[in-house]
């Protein structure tokens, strides 16, 4: 078993959906997906990120905003337990982010074991 990082990009309902009812429905899908992952012991953590931020280069050069732009901005992350990257990728396919055209980047976390 290894740990994997999901980086969520895009999939912002904001652009395509304004109905409170549909938003709540979409939120329900996220909650259900994450609850199932939690119950199966697959999810060890995750948090949403604010869109504002700062990028620092060269110790002193600070620009406003995240490193990327628009659809490339990372909106949140999750840490998953999986056998290998194939399983981790498989699990991500049920993520509701795809409903609004988002993407999931799957990266294995380097463990310290030899």
């Amino acid at each position: 078993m290894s740990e994997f990082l999901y980086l969520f990009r895009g999939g912002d309902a904001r652009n395509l959906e304004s109905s409170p009812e549909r938003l709540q429905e979409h939120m329900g899908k996220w909650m259900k997906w994450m609850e199932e992952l939690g119950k199966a012991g697959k999810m060890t953590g995750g948090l949403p990120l604010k869109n504002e931020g700062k990028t620092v280069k060269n110790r002193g050069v600070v620009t406003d905003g995240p490193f990327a732009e628009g659809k490339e901005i990372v909106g949140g992350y999750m840490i998953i337990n999986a056998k290998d990257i194939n399983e981790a990728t498989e699990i991500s396919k049920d993520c509701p982010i795809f409903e609004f055209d988002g993407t999931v980047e799957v990266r294995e976390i380097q463990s310290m074991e030899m």
Partner: protein
Amino acid sequence: MDHLFRHESGKMVSVLTRVFGFNDIEMAEDIVQETMYKALQEWPFHQVPDNPQAWLYKVARNKAIDMLRKQKKLLYNTDSVAAMALMEKNVSGQIDELFLDHEIQDSQLRMIFACCYPEISIESQIALTLKTLCGFSIKEIAKAFVTGEETINKRLLRAKQKIRNENITLDVPTGRELGKRLQSVLKTVYLLFNEGYNASSADILIRKDICLEAMRLVILLTEQPATNQVETQALLALMCFHAARFDSRIDAEGGIILLKDQDRKLWDKELIRKGYLYLNEASIGYITNEYVIEAGIMAVHCSASSYDKTDWPVILRLYESLEEIKDTPVVKLNKAIVIGQINGPKVAIEEILNNVPMKDYYLYHATLGELYFQSNDVFQAKQQLKLAMSLTDSNAEKLLLEKKLAKINS
């Protein structure tokens, strides 16, 4: 949590419109949207808060305060709480008060009266009410009314323009004004209910939601002493009796099932019980109006175990009372149907031909068709039903008539 976002959206828009003034209602709507997006982002990761309502209100309030601070110019609307608050430099305290339960009720009431202002066209009233008070999106409203989003947008614009041009303030009318305006509000909300109840080709789930929203608005009106009048209670009773039968009215193919063929086991007993409760309240005293009588008629229907066991003489008397205050062809037509139940279809046909001044209305010919069929005049029955079919655009109604014709032909 059912419909939480939708209901709270309506409440928050009402409160924030009081804060910013009606001229800036879009600001209120934007803040409410942003608040829900924030919940969408955070609740899955953190948890649904113990008090989701309070969480939403707090976020909306903070966003409102931020917005007010950003605005460099003062809001000049005299009915804007913000204008007064900014002058007193006590913005957040004032806004906090507006999020108290009784103030939220109050804000919604003011909003109902503004949205249902009589000078606005009825479709625009309905669109504005659904959007701002009931938390429906433009897409949902367009879907429910089987029309384009552009059309709904225009209706909303016209309604808002009218309110701005006439300087309509966010107030609950008082005194004699109240009675008149309340009548107008009830009429619009009932029409809204009927859109949900009768709409023939829209999504059945949205239609049911519209009915429930209309009922929620009337319940809101009954919770305020000033607006809790006989007509309000009676309308609520009437809506309960109609809504109770919602599930039994449509068959698997989307065709209409008439009252006499509805499976009464599918009728919602709890809603019927509530209908009786509200009707009892409305019947205290001697005031009568069309809603009281119509609710009375539905009460008699809902208390019968079958169509045949219905107390028709009582219903006939009620229709006679209704005719005295609402002398319309539809009422006369319905009365004739009841006469048919008591004295046979031939008498009903006579009654309709002599006393119902109606032409080119599908229901008129559909009713005659059915009555001719009952009196074994197959030729006339077919004529009338075919004529009825040509007079309606509704798929559900056409299906119903087709079924009747098929029955006759077999």
